[in-house]
């Protein structure tokens, strides 16, 4: 599935080795949450507290999410798999260090005004 020659230059691709995430989550493989990839993560504090239960990646998430950032973006910036970030978010949510806001329920659609705003916005791009 990888075609090194076709790798687009603009994809930021410095992902670390795959083994690391497991150490970081101390072997916890399965997140308790099923946060959507577009769930918005917002830190509740300007800086992480001192907490022996936190690893540097937790702190990075708090720094990154001073403004709401989608789960997928957090994962991309940290070069970590989505599943690993979900596990880290479990820890942060449990400590009330971030809020995670899920998008609208999957079976619903936004109303017309949202579609119109999107279409208008795209035309203006």
């Amino acid at each position, binding site marked *: *599935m990888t075609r090194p020659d*076709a790798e*687009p230059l*603009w*994809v*930021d*691709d410095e*992902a670390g080795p*795959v*083994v690391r*995430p*497991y150490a970081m989550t101390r*072997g*916890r*493989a*399965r997140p308790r949450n099923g946060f*959507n*990839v*577009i*769930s*918005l993560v*917002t830190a*509740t*504090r*300007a800086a992480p507290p001192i907490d022996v239960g936190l690893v540097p990646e937790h702190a990075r998430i708090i720094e990154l999410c001073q*403004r*709401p950032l*989608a789960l*997928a*973006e957090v*994962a*991309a*910036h940290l070069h*970590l*798999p*989505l*599943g*690993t970030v979900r596990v880290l978010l479990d820890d942060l949510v449990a400590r*009330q260090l971030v*809020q995670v*806001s899920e*998008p*609208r*329920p*999957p*079976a*619903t*659609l*936004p*109303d*017309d005004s*949202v*579609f119109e*705003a*999107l*279409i208008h*916005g*795209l*035309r203006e*791009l």
Partner: protein
Amino acid sequence: MDYENSDREDRTILPTALKILIAGGFGVGKTTLVAAVSETQPLRTEEVLSERGVGVDDLTGVEAKSTTTVAMDFGRITFGEDLVLYLFGTPGQDRFWFLWDELALGALGAVVLADTRRLADCFPSIDYFEGQGLPFIVAVNCFDGARQYSLEEVQMALNLDPDVPVMLCDARKRESSKEVLITLLQHVMKGRGLTRKPETVGS
């Protein structure tokens, strides 16, 4: 949910986050389209799947061999303060359906990119979205050297419901890619209430 004693006020306005999937066969131009309309260069995220394809399960004695890393490209378009649209390129292999489910959950709809030289490559995507009841359109990417088929021919060849819009596009061009997204949004808007419940129920 009950969050308290944060050391800053809750002044952050949460935007509404929405997503659209960009699907289609290998090398059909998914990442190119995402790049053409996104406000930043495409970002890449990964999911690690175990051999059984159920997420990062079963970690005891994990070896590099027992997992597969699937990469997804995505981009973002921010509209003002309160609306963010994410575009996710779906991973091109059928055995990653697990990941497709995750990406499709809550998506507004999908764009299936097609290359007329390899039309069959988009069958799996079309089957998937039809099965999920997720609205989609087909955008025929204009590759150099590809024979020009009429849109009706493509529609017939793909055995599409006549309501499904089929259009030409050039994923490298921003205007064309914008038009693709607008066509999808109009299609979703038109079909709302037919396949899925509108939001007004209950609240």
